[in-house]
């Protein structure tokens, strides 16, 4: 009963969150009545209100929702295939790799931004995995340490791109490193929606097989799966969706770690169910955080600041709580 209520809530949650967020913004002259007119009496609504709600707030809210959802989904998927509850796109270096790739794509023009973000996202995860692997084993802690190195490498490269590139092309470095949505637009939305949908559909297809992979390679292989091949496809899909959103949002730290754990606490570990819950809760929660980020001060606080401040103590708590030894 309780569980059913929670499931009901999580399916319903995005609707009020998205609607209320449409009302929140830095411009004071848009109110509930404008939204009412816009949806029910479009002829009476003012051009300005329409423009602000439909062309500024809506694309931003949708972009934030998709970003939050995809970070949570790829976080949970990465945790399952690496069998490591402490990783997410940020910890593995996927985010910084993709952010570097995107910045490089923007700065050089010739390379498509999304493709470049995807390629460097893959390179970063591969690098972390390669560094952490010893005697054919990848321990939980060594993977995190390797991720720190990867993060360092790619944020440095990102800084180089920033310094070398034409200031006309690239936004400020802090926007890349701490994440930001203040330039959200329908253009950005249309840029990410295809890779995100493709990535998510593939992950959705594999959602139950993630349970098998999460048990371990030998267990998966003995029940007739090819774990290596399957992991590669899942990793490609998770990186495709993850890097696409990073390319427009910048690095939003630790978000992909928090949400999957909250989902697991409420709904258990069965990825067959949690994949969609991650999408919905991850999306809604980031929209709420972004509402703070765009209204708390006169200027905009990068959204990654909030996720890092929430995520870091959460990470420490997880590390202390779980029986993860430093040797394994």
């Amino acid at each position, binding site marked *: 009963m309780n569980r059913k209520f929670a499931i009901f809530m999580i399916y319903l949650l995005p609707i009020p969150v998205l609607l209320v967020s449409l009302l929140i913004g830095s411009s004071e002259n848009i109110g509930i009545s404008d939204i009412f007119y816009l949806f029910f009496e479009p002829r009476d609504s003012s051009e300005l209100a329409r*423009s602000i709600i439909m062309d500024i707030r809506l694309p931003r809210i949708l972009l934030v929702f998709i970003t939050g959802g995809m970070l949570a989904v790829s976080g949970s998927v990465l945790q399952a295939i690496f069998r490591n509850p402490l990783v997410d796109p940020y910890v593995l270096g996927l985010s910084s790799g993709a952010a570097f790739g995107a910045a490089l794509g923007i700065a050089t023009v010739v390379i498509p931004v999304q493709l470049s973000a995807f390629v460097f996202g893959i390179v970063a995860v591969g690098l972390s995995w390669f560094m952490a692997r010893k005697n054919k084993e990848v321990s939980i802690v060594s993977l995190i340490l390797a991720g720190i190195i990867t993060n360092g490498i790619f944020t440095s490269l990102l800084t180089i791109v920033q310094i070398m590139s034409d200031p006309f092309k690239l936004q400020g470095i802090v926007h890349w490193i701490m994440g930001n949505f203040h*330039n959200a637009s329908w253009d950005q939305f249309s840029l990410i929606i295809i890779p995100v949908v493709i990535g998510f559909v593939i992950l959705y297809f594999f959602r139950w097989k993630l349970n098998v992979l999460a048990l371990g390679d030998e267990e998966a292989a003995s029940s007739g799966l090819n774990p290596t091949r399957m992991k590669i496809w899942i990793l490609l899909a998770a990186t495709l969706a993850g890097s696409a959103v990073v390319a427009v949002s910048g690095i939003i730290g630790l978000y992909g770690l928090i949400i999957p754990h909250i989902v697991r606490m409420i709904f258990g570990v069965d990825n067959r169910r949690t994949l969609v819950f991650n999408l919905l809760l991850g999306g809604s929660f980031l929209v709420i955080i972004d509402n703070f980020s765009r209204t708390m001060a006169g200027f905009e606080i990068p959204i990654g600041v909030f996720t890092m401040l929430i995520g870091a103590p959460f990470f420490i708590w997880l590390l202390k709580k779980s029986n993860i030894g430093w040797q394994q």
Partner: protein
Amino acid sequence: MRYSGFTYGLFFLLCAEIVLIGCDGNTSEQKQSAAIQVTDFRGKKLALDKPAEKVVCLIESALSGIYMLGKQDKVIGIPGDVYRGETWQRYSELDVRIREKSLPTPGNWDFVSLEQVVSLEPDLVIIWSSQAQAIENIERFDIPVYAVMMHSLEDVFKEIEDLGKLLDAENRAGEILGFTKDQLKTIAHDQTAESFKTAYFMWAQGINETSGQNSTVQGLLRYAGVKNVCDLHDEHATINIEKLHDWDPDMIVMWYNEKLDPADVIENPLLQGLKAVREKQVYELPSAFDCDFWTLKFLYPVQLIHFWAYANQDTTAKPDPEKLLRVLYNQSQSDE
């Protein structure tokens, strides 16, 4: 089977991406018959049918320019930084809306709230050209954008000239430009055959921070009749202290600095080998507002630096900022 499906998907994605990138063109068409035409610092042509009436200006130095042109009534949005510190005090004397903080602040040099800009319904937005994404977004709402980037004092002249056209103040623009250029000529005239003194410019962040040849600082020092020792090309450069010893300037000019005074620089043990330090030729520009050399107010630091460098050689009197500002802000008649 399903893997090949994924491959097709990936291929499709790539194609879609190429198409999307291809479409990313400029959507705003240009009106050839417009009454007012200027080219901004991006090289983009800006065409207005009539002078702008509602201006959101997100650059403090350009805002100064608008006040000098006497068109502050057209300003409906300003950068958030204006409401802080000395800048706020100085603007408070010029505009009651700023004193009461009633003018909206939809952004600053780093960040723009698209929503606030759009909801103000401006007919002109003035913004740094480095905020490329914000510019793209604003232009999508068919709001004209005048983008600014300063690399020299000539850029300041161009900005004032353009603002004069855009805001229907061409005469006033001509007036203050003429005044400034005349004043500069008197300094150039003062220069004797005496060899140029050399100067090192130090930004507020510290002794290592300076500007190279391709910068407004370069122009400032040149007009003041001294030579910039920094031979790098960068607009902003972080240099090594050893490099500074190689250059060994005759004088050090500090930008307005809240933490350091010339005395601190003179006592800095790392700098004792420098001629300028030994001879105590270290000067600080007295006020960020009065000396702002992204505006025509650069005249004051030019005069000051020239005075510091050559006061004992010619008869230049110590420059008076109040007199200068009164002319530039056109306050001779209506002194409130």
